[in-house]
C-alpha cells in the first residue's frame, strides 16, 4: 500500500504586474537585466480585497470539478498569509468547498518548503490509515507583505494557489523523504511585525535598503545573499541524500524540479549539483516565485507540456523561509 499524486490544478490571480510597469516605478531598474537574471517577466498579484483563502478556494473548486468531493477525507492547507489568527483557513475551506463534515482539516505554516512537507504529511496520513483521499492546497500572497517601494521583493514574488489530490494506491508512488530545519536563519526571511511578539505598527519607520528598496518592519524582509548562502550549503546535500535514501542515482531520475526561487540561483544550483539542462525545470517567467506553489505549478505545466509522463521518476527539492527544506521522489 502507498500513496500517489492524482491531479494538480492551480490558480493565478488575474491582476498582472509586468516588468514594464516596474521599470516605470523604478527608473534605474533594467527590465532586460531582470528578465535575464531573475527570470521573471510578469507576476500575478492579488487585489486589495483578495486573499490567499480566496485563491485557495478557486484552485480547490477547479480540482474538484473532476473529482468526487465526497471522497475527500482530509484537507491540508499551507499558507503564511492567513485570513485570521484563528480559526484555521482549512476549516473555512471545508465549508466553502462543501466538503464532508467528517474530514480532518488543518493549516500549516510553511513557505517554499510547504509542498514537499504537504506530500510527506499526506503520505503519512494515508499509510497510517487515517485518510485515503487528501486535498492539499498551497496558497500564498507574499505581495500583501511586500512594501510598495521594495524593488527587490516586488520583482521576485508573485501570488498563486495550487490544489493537489493525493490518493491511497496499491503501489507506493511517493518515495522516501529527506526533511530539514535550521531556525538559526529565521531572521533572514521574515515579516517582523504583525504577530504577537511585535504588533503591527502604524507609526513604523521606513528602512532604506542599500539596493534602493524601501520597507518597514511591517513588511517582508529578505536577506537575499544570506538565503543564497543557505541554499548553496544545503540544497546539494538534500539532493544527494534524497537520491541515496531512494536508492537511485541522478542519472536514474527522469526529471528534476526544484522550488523556483529565482533563475540565477536555480541555474547555479543546477550546475553545482551537475544536473543537465534537459532534465531540469526552470520557469518562473510568467509567475515569479510563488513560494509553496512553485513546485505543483511546475509539475502541472510539465505534465501538460508532456515534459514528464506516466511512470517518470521526478526528484523534487524545496527550500526557503524558516529555514526549512525537504526532498523526495515521486513517480508520476
Amino acid at each position, binding site marked *: 500500500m502507498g500513496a500517489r499524486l492524482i491531479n494538480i490544478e492551480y490558480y493565478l490571480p488575474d491582476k498582472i504586474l509586468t516588468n514594464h510597469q516596474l521599470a516605470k516605478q523604478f527608473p534605474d531598474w533594467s527590465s532586460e*537585466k*531582470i528578465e535575464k*537574471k*531573475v527570470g521573471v517577466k510578469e507576476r500575478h498579484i492579488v487585489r486589495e480585497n483578495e486573499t490567499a483563502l480566496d485563491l485557495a478556494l478557486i484552485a480547490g473548486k477547479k480540482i474538484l470539478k473532476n473529482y468526487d468531493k465526497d471522497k475527500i477525507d482530509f484537507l491540508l492547507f499551507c499558507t503564511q498569509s492567513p485570513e485570521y489568527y484563528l480559526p484555521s483557513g482549512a476549516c473555512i475551506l471545508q465549508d466553502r468547498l462543501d466538503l464532508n463534515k467528517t474530514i480532518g482539516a488543518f493549516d500549516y505554516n510553511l513557505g517554499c518548503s510547504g509542498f514537499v512537507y504537504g506530500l510527506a504529511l499526506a503520505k503519512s496520513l494515508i499509510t497510517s490509515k487515517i485518510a485515503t483521499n487528501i486535498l492539499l492546497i498551497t496558497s500564498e500572497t507574499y505581495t500583501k507583505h511586500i512594501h510598495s517601494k521594495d524593488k*527587490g521583493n516586488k520583482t521576485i514574488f508573485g501570488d498563486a494557489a495550487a490544489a493537489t489530490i493525493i490518493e491511497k494506491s496499491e503501489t507506493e508512488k511517493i518515495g522516501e523523504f529527506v526533511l530539514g530545519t535550521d531556525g538559526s536563519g529565521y531572521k533572514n526571511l521574515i515579516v517582523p511585525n504583525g504577530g504577537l511578539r511585535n504588533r503591527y505598527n502604524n507609526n513604523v519607520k521606513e528602512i532604506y535598503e*542599500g*539596493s534602493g528598496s524601501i520597507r518597514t518592519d511591517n513588511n517582508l524582509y529578505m*536577506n*537575499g*545573499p*544570506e538565503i*543564497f*548562502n543557505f541554499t*548553496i*550549503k544545503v540544497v546539494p546535500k538534500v539532493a544527494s541524500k534524497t537520491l541515496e535514501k531512494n536508492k537511485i542515482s541522478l542519472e536514474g531520475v527522469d526529471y528534476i524540479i526544484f522550488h523556483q526561487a529565482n533563475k*540565477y*540561483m536555480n541555474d*547555479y544550483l543546477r550546475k*553545482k549539483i551537475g544536473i543537465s539542462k534537459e532534465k531540469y525545470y526552470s520557469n518562473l517567467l510568467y509567475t515569479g516565485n510563488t513560494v509553496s506553489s512553485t513546485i505543483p505549478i511546475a509539475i502541472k505545466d510539465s505534465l501538460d507540456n508532456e515534459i514528464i509522463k506516466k511512470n517518470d521518476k521526478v526528484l523534487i527539492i524545496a527550500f526557503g523561509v524558516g529555514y526549512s527544506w525537504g526532498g523526495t521522489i515521486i513517480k508520476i
Partner: protein
Amino acid sequence: MMEKMKIEDFINDLKDALDIENENIEISLKTNLKELEEYDSLSLLSIIAMIDKNFCKQIPSSDFAKVTTVRSLIKLIGKEYFII
C-alpha cells in the same frame, strides 16, 4: 587544499560577476566596489556564486557589508587562497 588563484584571474571572474561590459572600466586591487554602478544586490548573487565556485566558501552577508576595495574582498575570502 585547493589550488591557489592568481589575482588577475580573480579580477577577471569578478568583472564577469559584475557584468561589466565597458572595457574602459579598470578593476584593480584598489577599486572600491561600492563606487561601481554594477555592484548591486543582483551582482552580489553572482559574486557569492563565483566565490563558492572558486573557493567552496560562503561569505556571511554581514561581512560583505564591510567590503570596500577588491583588496578587502580578497582579505575576507582569505589571502591563503591567492598567489600573492
